[in-house]
């Protein structure tokens, strides 16, 4: 038996390899560079890797190949679009992360301990977050282009493990942050187990771990359908956990609240793009012909997710928890695009992911600005009268909320329209009706926050809006601009997605 060297298409893998390289350099900096210089060099390396990776991706954007890495990675239009979205969102999030106020001085120190006090006195800064971010980004880039279950699982773990750590890095309320990290880790581990279980069933069903192999078995119809059904069900549990669909959402409010806000923004936006990218590929490529096995269940999950997210968000008193439930509702809307199982559904989902991701990063960027002497203020009651204190910040946040609510002239409206119309076009009337109704419910809590900010008088308790750092300003400004532009002139991006987005089989 001879060993064949793997054939890799390096040009197409370059975006991921660059990020991984940057992450490793980041680790070396942590190990060898003096503490004082770490923050600057880490930030530089991170931004440089993201930008280079994006440039490398643009170099090969017109290529496509089903076999970028021995049949485990595909490179196609949809993949390029998803990877580009992830990179842009990651770059904007890194600008938020660079505002180090939000991170603990020494993650390893026990909360309340002597070490913690000492590290705070020394004004240490946690810089490990940069290589962790890059590792997560690498996993996210691989996630939507994996074409076999093993690679998909590896990507899932590569993106998840750094996120578990990053969730625990909050500077204030550290116990809560660590609790959320542990919760995220434990539930994530559970869902990974489900995922593997499903992969095993699918292998048993088709004798193959590649998407095309599974698809061939589905078309051939020779396998045991029970295994297929179980396989799809368990794999879906693992993937739906990542996007926070009901009933696999329980982690997300706690983690969104506990994690440092910049990380929450990154997690909410980029993870969603990556995970939905993977969901799209596996359902559109591997399971497309087994539509009747999964569609009814997924329709039900989508409806429950949108309704549950919208209804529960109404009662939230914390802005980060509210955004968490809102993101659950949005996961439901996004599932509508998966269920559509059509070209227009694919286009709509990719557009929605990008538009939603950008608005989410921007919204969390605004959340980092509202602080009092002990850190960020996320209690909604204390946001009252924000419009009086700093009209600009409140207006920008209100604008993002209107985009989430899908008001015309924001990107959210175009996204909502295209995703619902694609779902209805493929016959899902109930998705359309429940989507519209839950949008109406969701509008209620978005508007409540606007009322709070603009129509209530400020409470005098030291809550104020800090002057944002230059990088945070860039993130918020760019997100706002993109949200406006995609609302008013979406045609160029829609045309681009329409002509580019496809899955190679």
């Amino acid at each position, binding site marked *: 038996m001879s060993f064949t060297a793997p054939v890799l298409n390096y040009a197409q893998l370059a975006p991921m390899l660059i990020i991984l390289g940057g992450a490793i350099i980041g680790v070396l900096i942590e190990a060898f560079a003096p503490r004082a210089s770490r923050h600057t060099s880490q930030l530089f390396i991170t931004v440089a890797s993201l930008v280079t990776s994006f440039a490398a991706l643009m170099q090969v954007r017109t290529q496509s190949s089903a076999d970028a890495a021995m049949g485990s990675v595909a490179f196609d239009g949809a993949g390029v679009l998803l990877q580009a979205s992830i990179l842009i969102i990651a770059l904007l999030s890194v600008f938020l992360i660079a505002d180090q106020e939000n991170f603990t001085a020494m993650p390893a120190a026990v909360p309340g301990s002597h070490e913690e006090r000492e590290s705070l006195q020394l004004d240490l800064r946690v810089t490990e977050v940069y290589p962790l971010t890059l590792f997560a980004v690498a996993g996210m880039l691989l996630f939507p282009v994996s074409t076999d279950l093993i690679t998909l699982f590896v990507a899932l773990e590569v993106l998840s493990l750094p996120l578990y750590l990053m969730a625990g890095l909050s500077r204030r309320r550290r116990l809560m942050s660590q609790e959320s990290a542990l919760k995220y880790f434990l539930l994530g581990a559970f869902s990974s187990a489900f995922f593997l279980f499903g992969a095993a069933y699918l292998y048993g069903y088709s004798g193959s771990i590649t998407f095309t192999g599974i698809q061939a078995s589905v078309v051939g119809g020779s396998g045991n359908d029970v295994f297929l059904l179980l396989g799809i069900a368990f794999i879906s549990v693992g993937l739906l956990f990542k996007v926070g669909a009901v009933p696999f959402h329980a982690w997300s409010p706690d983690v969104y609240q506990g994690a440092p806000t910049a990380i929450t923004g990154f997690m909410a936006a980029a993870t969603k793009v990556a995970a939905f990218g993977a969901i799209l590929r596996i359902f559109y490529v591997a399971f497309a012909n087994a539509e009747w096995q999964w569609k009814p269940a997924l329709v039900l999950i989508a409806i429950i997710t949108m309704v549950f997210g919208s209804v529960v968000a109404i009662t939230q008193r914390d802005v980060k928890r509210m955004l968490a439930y809102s993101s659950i509702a949005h996961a439901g809307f996004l599932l509508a695009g998966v269920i559509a199982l059509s070209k227009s559904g694919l286009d709509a989902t990719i557009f929605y992911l990008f538009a939603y991701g950008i608005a989410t990063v921007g919204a969390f960027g605004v959340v980092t600005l509202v602080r009092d002497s002990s850190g960020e203020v996320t209690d909604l009651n204390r946001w009252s009268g924000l*419009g*009086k204190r700093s*009209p600009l910040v409140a207006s920008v946040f209100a604008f993002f909320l*209107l985009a989430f*609510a899908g*008001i*015309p*002239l924001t990107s959210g*409206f*175009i996204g*909502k*329209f*295209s995703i*619902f*119309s694609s779902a*209805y*076009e493929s016959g899902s009337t109930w998705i*359309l*009706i429940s989507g*519209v*109704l839950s*949008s*109406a419910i969701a*509008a*209620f809590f978005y*508007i*409540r926050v606007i*009322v709070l900010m*603009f*129509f*209530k008088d400020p409470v005098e308790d030291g809550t104020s809006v800090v002057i944002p750092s230059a990088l945070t300003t860039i993130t918020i400004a760019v997100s706002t601009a993109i949200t406006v532009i995609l609302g008013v002139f*979406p*045609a160029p991006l*829609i*045309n681009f997605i*329409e002509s580019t987005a496809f899955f190679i089989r």
Partner: protein
Amino acid sequence: MNALTSMMLLPLLGSLLVAVIPSDQVLRIKQAALGTTVLVAISGVMAWFKFDSENTSFQFVQIAQWIPSFGINYAVGVDGLALVLILMSVLLAPIVVLAGWNESEGGRWSAKVFYILILVLETMMIGVFAATDVFLFYVFFEAMLIPVYFLIGGYGSGERAAAAVKFLLYSLFGGLLMLASIIGLYVISGTHGGHTFDIGQLSEMHKYMSSTTQNLLFLGFFIAFAIKAPVWPLHTWLPDAAASATPGTSVLLLGVLDKVGTFGMIRFCLALFPDASKTFTPVIMVLAVISILYGAFLAIGARDIKRLIAYTSISHFGFITMGIFAMTTQGHSGATLYMFNHGFSTAALFLVAGWMISRRGSSTIADFGGLQRVTPVMAWSFFIAGMSSLALPGLSSFVSEFLVLVGTYTRYPVAAIIATFGIVLAALYILIPVQKALHGPTTPGNENLRDLNLREKIAIGPVIAVIIALGFYPAPLLNVINPASAHVLEVQGFTDPVPSESAGK
């Protein structure tokens, strides 16, 4: 440049101008806003003279691609119906600015924000009537809620925030139902000749729908418009909003925005779903008659002068809805003329009421008494406005109310007869407050009220002139309205009933 597009651009440019004037130069800001609205009004009148009333197709048409992949165009154009409503809107805008010269002072924000909101709203008011692309219409329909929301919540009085939220939530709910119907239409058009939102092409689509589909889509549109109009039982937001908003905002809200509802019934409900319109006509007639009587009874019982005007409007909108769904040319012409007249008589009522309230410091009718002796000009203005509201012969509303009743009687005699009681009640709800507030001895607290100043006289003068002039000579308007009404009915195959008497002999 296209007349409609330039009319929409003017207020936007005006709002930019207002935005660059420093906030402390309040007078300059007001002058800029007034100048802009006067310019728009002049261009509106010029468009009126250029309009060819014999030509029943859309005029001043401009079509440009907006989102080609969804078949969405920026398409504007007017027929007689839309032109009349645009003319009403642009004439009311400068009057509102002039009459409410000091309205912005009690607000949460500066005068600058107030006038920017008013001007942006004016652009959208023109756009919503001018759009001939259903998607574009929807964008204006929803987007115009946001400036109104801030106008009520930011500059109103009393429970302004709650009223603003109620208004917005009601409207968003209706809007989302309409969005579902629009998506339905879009999908149907996709399978019959390609995706489009062109109102002309969409009005062919009813041929391809099952009656259930058509009924459901009709309801999506109709409920949205019935909330807007408002028709009983979807009216409950209106009294709160009108009572809390500033008089100027109320004029725009009741005079213009609510007309979008009745305009939409003609333009969209009847034109897109003729069969469903026929199916639902009996129900809608009942609702319209209930609105007429219910609004009138509530108005009789109202203690607050602004609420009284709001309730009278509910009654008037009942007449308009009845005229529309009678499906006769007289009913339609009457309804359209009614919309125009109602705009002016409500404007007169609200503006004079606003001055009375700001002078007396109370909006309770019982607090006023004998104003005729103290402030004769103000009292007479209110009197004429009130007479117009109860449709006194010789004033403009009489012509339209008469046409509506005649047009309804030829097809639905019972509804018309019951609705006639509305006229009797109208005499009560207008004459009781007129007697209490204007006549009789001057009650304590009213002795030292000032009469109208020159600015206020200039503002109310044209309104009263229009009310009287159109009462004697409505021909200029009817010449434009009649061909348009006949055309709307003819296209969808509605015919006037043959007079029954000649048939019997």
